[in-house]
């Protein structure tokens, strides 16, 4: 059983430039798939296509999942919300203790925001999780704790699609081989 499958798949930017060409890739249920590649190769855009949020592609894309949890890359924008991190997520994890809940979102660092967002995604407890660069902005201690959580997640038979430059020891696919 697959989660998704790409056959002779080509990916384009919104302006029509080719990002990836003739991709053949299959992700099985219960598998962890780590997409790697240089900056700008098209990792995030490929994820958006898999989630049906980016339609500029050609070829065959078969989706066999109904629900998912998704963490996108944080933008560099300074958020303007009169709220605290507890409004983003009030579910505690070792990397996101209760002591962080009352930090105002607008004054929180990139790492603190990322921890709150990871906590929100993990709390959704879905069978298919997609994390785009989840370790960016995180300190070394938090990276270890998040890795531990992800290891347990995969051991429980669920599927994980992840991008980033931190080695996780799972099946890796380098997108660079499909660039033009």
């Amino acid at each position, binding site marked *: 059983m697959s989660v998704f499958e790409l056959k002779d798949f080509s990916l384009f930017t919104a302006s029509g430039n080719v990002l990836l060409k003739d991709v053949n890739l299959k992700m099985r249920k219960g598998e962890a798939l780590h997409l790697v590649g240089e900056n700008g190769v098209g990792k*995030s855009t490929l994820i*958006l296509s898999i989630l049906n*949020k980016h339609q500029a592609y050609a070829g065959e894309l078969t989706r066999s999942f109904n629900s998912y949890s998704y963490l*996108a*890359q*944080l*933008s*560099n*924008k300074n*958020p*303007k*919300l*009169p*709220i*605290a991190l*507890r*409004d*983003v997520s009030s579910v505690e994890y070792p990397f996101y203790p209760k002591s962080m809940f*009352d930090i*105002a*979102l*607008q*004054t929180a660092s990139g790492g603190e*925001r990322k921890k709150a*967002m990871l906590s929100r995604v993990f709390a959704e407890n879905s069978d298919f999780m997609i994390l785009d660069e989840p370790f960016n902005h995180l300190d070394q201690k938090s990276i270890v704790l998040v890795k531990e959580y992800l290891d347990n997640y995969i051991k429980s038979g669920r599927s994980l699609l992840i991008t980033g430059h931190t080695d996780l020891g799972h099946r890796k696919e380098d997108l660079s081989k499909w660039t033009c």
Partner: protein
Amino acid sequence: MDMLSFYWPNLIAGFCLSLALGLIGIHTIARNQALDSFVLGQELQSGIIFSAFLLNVFDMHVDHGLHSESLISLVIAITLHLSFIWMLKKYNLIRLEVSLVYVFFLIAINNLFMSLNPMIESHMVNSMLGDIVTASKIESILISLFSALFVLFYIKQRKVFLKESIDIALFSEEKQKISHQIILVLFMSLSVHILGLVFTLSMLLMAPIFMLLTHMKNLNYSIFYVLLFNGLSVLIGFSGLGLNDRIPTSVMIIMVLTMVNLLFFFSKRILK
């Protein structure tokens, strides 16, 4: 008391509308749409003036308010806003500059129509600085019902609104939600027609901006203070009618709103 027995529907309408606008305002700022709402306000005013001009050309004089003029002006405003969104898509990197030039252009057009037909000057004044006491009983009841329903809907859907706002604030990939755009256009249109542009933008943006400046501990606190300050300003500002009936209530309400927010801001700073 005589004044209250006569104007109670108007007072309830202003009160309910201020609560609805405050709630929408928090999420408008969160979604980086404060500038868009400013432009939209100007488009709504231009819609009112242009529709009044058109109706006058065809000898169909109407008073300012929720009449046939409202529908025509709303269509004009939405057309203007869609053109604005199209322009922003093309020139998003100079968003602020495009918005400013566009607003100046609309102000110039407004003045052109007014100079061509001085009879529409009252529409210009009312759409800028409306007065709640000029709303009819039916208009007041409609505004009250519409606003109260929205507040109840918001309470039920609070988590959905918040999740959308967080995603738009934190992730560049997320697009603006059409539901929020529709709510913004509907309530701003209603408010600009009856209470004017200055009241609308003040109720929409002022208290949420002060909540941002004071770094509130969580959303519930922010919402509580926005609702308290907006509602209180309407009640106190309206009572100013008894002191001087020549000053429009919207002016009194905005003065009170500014004072309350400034007092809150400085007291928080002193207590820190």
